[in-house]
């Protein structure tokens, strides 16, 4: 069972629908007890980094950290991935999971923000989540803040400089783009997650 964590930030219908299409069993939940029982956890997120405060208040943060420690595969999508870092300029008072050091920053003024649309991935070798996805594949982004390039970066994207489109280390995965909205490429990535 895959738990899709609902922290009242945006709309989870699309993520749930994509997993349904792949035949995966999912539950959309904001209940920490239910999330703790899942084999895999997905944290979608759109909107403001500050909304992740709800994860602290509800106890979901602790459940997610404990699950990751137990080896449960965890996938953060969009703001869900940004939250895996220490912090974000968008809401400096909120602490992320700090799975990796670094801060999410706003795009430079030289480019339009948000970064909306289909952009290509430069995939680094050895990613389990992106297995079988050719480098150069297009995926759909919509975000105003970005994760810097890290040693855990598994795919890079270029927009006002390079940033992390995907991160991966052991059972921790993050994607800045929306796999549920990225056509066949996105579905292949979600299928890889289901098969972990």
């Amino acid at each position, binding site marked *: 069972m895959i738990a899709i964590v609902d922290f009242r*930030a*945006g*709309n989870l*219908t*699309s993520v749930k*629908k*994509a997993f349904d*299409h792949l035949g995966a069993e999912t539950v959309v939940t904001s209940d920490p007890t239910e999330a703790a029982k899942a084999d895999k956890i997905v944290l979608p997120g*759109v*909107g*403001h980094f500050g909304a992740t405060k709800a994860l602290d208040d509800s106890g979901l943060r602790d459940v997610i950290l404990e699950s990751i420690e137990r080896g449960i595969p965890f996938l953060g999508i969009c703001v869900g991935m940004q939250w895996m870092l220490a912090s974000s300029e968008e809401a400096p008072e909120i602490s992320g999971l700090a799975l990796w050091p670094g801060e999410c920053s706003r795009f430079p003024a030289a480019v*339009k*923000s*948000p*970064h*909306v*649309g*289909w*952009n*290509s991935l430069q995939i680094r070798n050895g990613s389990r989540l992106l297995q079988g996805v050719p480098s150069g594949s*297009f995926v*759909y982004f*919509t*975000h105003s803040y970005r994760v810097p390039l890290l040693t855990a970066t598994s795919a890079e994207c*270029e*927009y006002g400089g390079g940033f992390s489109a995907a991160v991966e280390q052991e059972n921790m995965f993050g994607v800045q783009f*929306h796999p*549920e*909205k*990225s*056509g*066949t490429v*996105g*579905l292949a990535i979600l299928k890889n997650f289901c098969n972990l």
Partner: protein
Amino acid sequence: MLTKRIIACLDVDAGRVVKGTQFLDLRDAGDPAALAAAHSKAGADEVVLLDITATHEKRNTLLETVRRTARELFVPFTVGGGVRTLDDASAIFDAGADKISINSAAIADAALITCIAERFGSQAVIVAIDAKRNGADSKAGSEAGFQAFVSGGRVATGRDAIAWAKEAEDRGAGEILLTSMDRDGTGVGFDCDLTRVIAQAVRIPVIASGGAGGAEHFVQVFREGAADAALAASIFHFGLSSISELKKHLQVAGIPVRLPC
């Protein structure tokens, strides 16, 4: 590289697509779900469903249509037409839309933009602006400015389209869907002047709409109009067999597009 988006628009009345239905290989070319899937397969970067009647009694039909269309569609999906309140928007998101497009209701009460953006995020809110050149001089290069219209272009608002686009951005809109009323339905090309002034006035993406009559018009609106995306309601009227063919044309012209789709 961030690509220019080609967005397929389905005009829907009481659950049926009412124009741009020339998919020869579809058994039911009026079915929005079948058409949306076909457009996506042909390379549409997004799909917009515009409810052109949006009368109260047809609302439930719309939601059912949205639900069916969204079910097997895995590219961004926008629904517009008749969204008046946060509840209207919520119902459409629940049915599976990723973004809503608002026009008249946003002009009537601009706080609605903020209200929906705070709940669902700015990326989910498109403000649609129907703009028309002021005065009798509707030729390209006119300095008279542009005015926003509502109610399907029937009612002038007295609002300057550029100022309104900026306000919409400030209030939390994630994108602007800009339709030239002077060009809509003419097939003589997008209004690149209008598109450029709006695209330069805001930092959010601008989707150009109205006037496309051939693949070259898309090249122009991306190059001269600085559009981030272009909406095509009836691509098959342009003598092209698919969006894929349009994108190949754009690629040859040096416009970055998503290929293969």
